[in-house]
């Protein structure tokens, strides 16, 4: 196939636009104290409702989501639709605990979730466990953003035939991303997110109206999809998938939705998005309007069926389903609009990749560099280290994609989801009660990590017996159903933590010092009455007072 120059030009045009925005962002709302990590790593904790909304949306609904969720539905049908209930229940779930997280983080100057764990349990080991889990889970996630860009570039037939020429466009895109993240910090993705989400909304709306018209309506699309799903896959001897989850698949569907929802805000980049909000009301208001994104994701996932109906990848042996959506766009849209759609996906990869690398850099700097290596690091030194680490993290992700099998980063990302879920008890438990013993949390975390990794190791890819990390569902002991490994591991994790806490409390093992008080969890940036608590966070910009008792 020939390179589609119209689509490519539109794509490059948008890419240049966001590059300019990325560098200009450094001057946007310029900080008084640019050397503080709050500035580079949290955008000065100053984002209002609109910016926060775009930032969080740009952060959580990544290019990989746009490619992978429809690709999964293209591949197996109904089972891939779990992403919809997952994003629906995520919002009421986090509505309960994110405002508390924001308050305590603001009051105590926490930049990462691991900062909170250290402050709440007085335990550097728990903090390091949370930080390492976060970094490990984020790396493959960044790598997947590259996979998203690569899918678009492949569809556009960019790059030469040599292996270096093929990767060159990706290297350029990444060098540019790294440069503006380095100079502008969280402000860059926050601004670019406006462009990204506008493009994505336009593309999705057009796609769900225009493509069905061309394909003969939704009834026709679902009919084609049902026929394709019922066909036997010669590799496995089973049907390709199903349109409705059967009784044996429902546990997996529900536990995947629940586990993913619980894991969502344990990811460092999500927490970064929340902590950058300027006040508590902003956080809560945002959570109330976030479901607009879920609707978009739900509509988008139907594109997987449209790709089947349009005959994308039909008869291609070993077809890479990650290409299904870009190729659907290319086949259905006029060139110029395909370019817009590709730009939406490409920019949709840059925004989260930037935020993720910032979040991982924050974790390393605060909880490994400062806590373990150099306790007397100044805020300026912290910022310097964080900026450098953001580059290292991105290089690592690039290495993943270029050096290692692409499938491996996808598998690692599934594993990352299982891992990050194991920090849930320490973080969410800690936001409500100071009951768990720090050592018990550590043991529970270790148990969950070990069990989850071991079980995932035992999952072979479909049709390839003897392979490992091929999926994230396995038999749940006792219940005897197939379910999401992350949730099973979490139950084990909590059980270990509860039992050991009881034991450790009974033998009066030393508890760490809790530096937070109840009022910290409900505090807001506020006009406090005279004479009340005027001790702000270490940054000392705002006066904060508890709102409720």
């Amino acid at each position, binding site marked *: 196939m020939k390179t589609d120059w119209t689509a490519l030009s539109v794509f490059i045009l948008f890419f240049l636009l966001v590059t300019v925005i990325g560098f200009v962002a450094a001057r946007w709302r310029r900080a008084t104290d640019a050397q503080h990590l709050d500035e580079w790593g949290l955008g000065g904790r100053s984002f209002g409702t609109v910016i926060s909304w775009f930032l969080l949306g740009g952060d959580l609904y990544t290019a990989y989501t746009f490619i992978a969720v429809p690709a999964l539905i293209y591949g197996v049908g109904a089972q891939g639709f779990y992403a919809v209930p997952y994003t*629906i229940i995520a919002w009421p779930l986090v509505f309960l605990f994110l405002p508390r997280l924001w308050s305590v983080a603001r009051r105590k100057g926490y930049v990462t979730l691991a900062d909170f764990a250290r402050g709440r349990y007085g335990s550097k080991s728990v903090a390091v466990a949370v930080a390492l889990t976060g970094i490990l889970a984020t790396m493959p996630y960044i790598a997947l953003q590259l996979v998203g860009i690569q899918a678009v570039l492949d569809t556009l037939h960019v790059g030469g035939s040599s292996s270096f020429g093929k990767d060159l466009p990706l290297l350029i895109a990444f060098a540019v991303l790294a440069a503006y993240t380095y100079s502008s910090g969280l402000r860059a993705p926050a601004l670019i997110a406006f462009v990204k989400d506008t493009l994505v909304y336009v593309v999705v709306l057009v796609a769900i109206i225009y493509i069905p018209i061309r394909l003969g309506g939704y009834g026709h699309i679902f009919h084609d999809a049902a026929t394709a799903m019922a066909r036997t896959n010669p590799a496995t001897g089973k049907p390709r998938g199903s349109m409705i989850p059967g009784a044996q698949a429902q546990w997996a569907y529900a536990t995947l939705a629940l586990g993913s929802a619980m894991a969502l805000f344990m990811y460092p980049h999500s927490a970064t998005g929340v902590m950058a909000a300027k006040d508590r009301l902003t956080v809560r208001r945002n959570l109330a309007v976030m479901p607009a994104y879920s609707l978009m994701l739900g509509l988008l996932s139907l594109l997987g069926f449209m790709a089947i109906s349009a005959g994308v990848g039909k008869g291609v042996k070993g077809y890479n389903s990650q290409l299904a959506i870009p190729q659907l766009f290319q086949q259905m849209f006029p060139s110029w609009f395909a370019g817009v759609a590709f730009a939406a996906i490409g920019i949709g990869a840059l925004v989260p990749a930037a935020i993720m690398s910032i979040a991982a850099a924050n974790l390393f700097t605060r909880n490994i560099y400062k806590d373990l290596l150099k306790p007397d690091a100044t805020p300026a030194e912290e910022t310097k280290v964080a900026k450098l680490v953001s580059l290292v993290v991105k290089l690592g992700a690039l290495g993943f994609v270029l050096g290692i099998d692409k499938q491996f980063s996808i598998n690692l990302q599934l594993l990352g989801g299982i891992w990050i879920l194991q920090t849930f008890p320490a973080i969410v438990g800690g936001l409500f009660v100071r009951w768990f013993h720090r050592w018990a949390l550590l043991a529970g975390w270790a148990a969950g990590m070990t069990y989850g990794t071991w079980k995932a190791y035992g999952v072979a890819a479909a049709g390839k017996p003897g392979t490992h990390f091929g999926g994230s569902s396995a038999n749940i002991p006792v219940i005897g159903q197939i379910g999401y490994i992350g949730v099973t591991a979490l139950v084990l994790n909590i059980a270990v933590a509860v039992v050991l806490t009881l034991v450790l409390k009974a033998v009066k093992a030393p508890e760490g010092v809790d530096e937070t008080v109840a009022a910290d969890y409900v505090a807001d940036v506020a006009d406090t009455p005279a004479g009340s608590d005027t001790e702000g966070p270490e940054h000392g910009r705002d006066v904060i007072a508890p709102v409720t008792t």
Partner: protein
Amino acid sequence: MSQPTEAKLPLVTPVRVVCAVLLVAPFVALLWVDSYATDKPAFVGIPFFYWYQLLWVILSALMTGLAYVLFTREERQRRARRLARGGEQA
């Protein structure tokens, strides 16, 4: 002039109970997969399984939004009372 019984709202109030129900409902509806794992009735050619879950996106958005309004209103009340109490002490 002080009315100590009114000075502080209890931890569990009717508003908070309503909020809890609004927030928990999507969990029950969506995690009970068997209740919607069927293809009929279809809507404009989309099987029940799919349009029902998409409908819940909208329902849960409305419910979370309502919980937000109720909760914020009550929090403002709590805050006002707390400040009033603080003022008396000063």
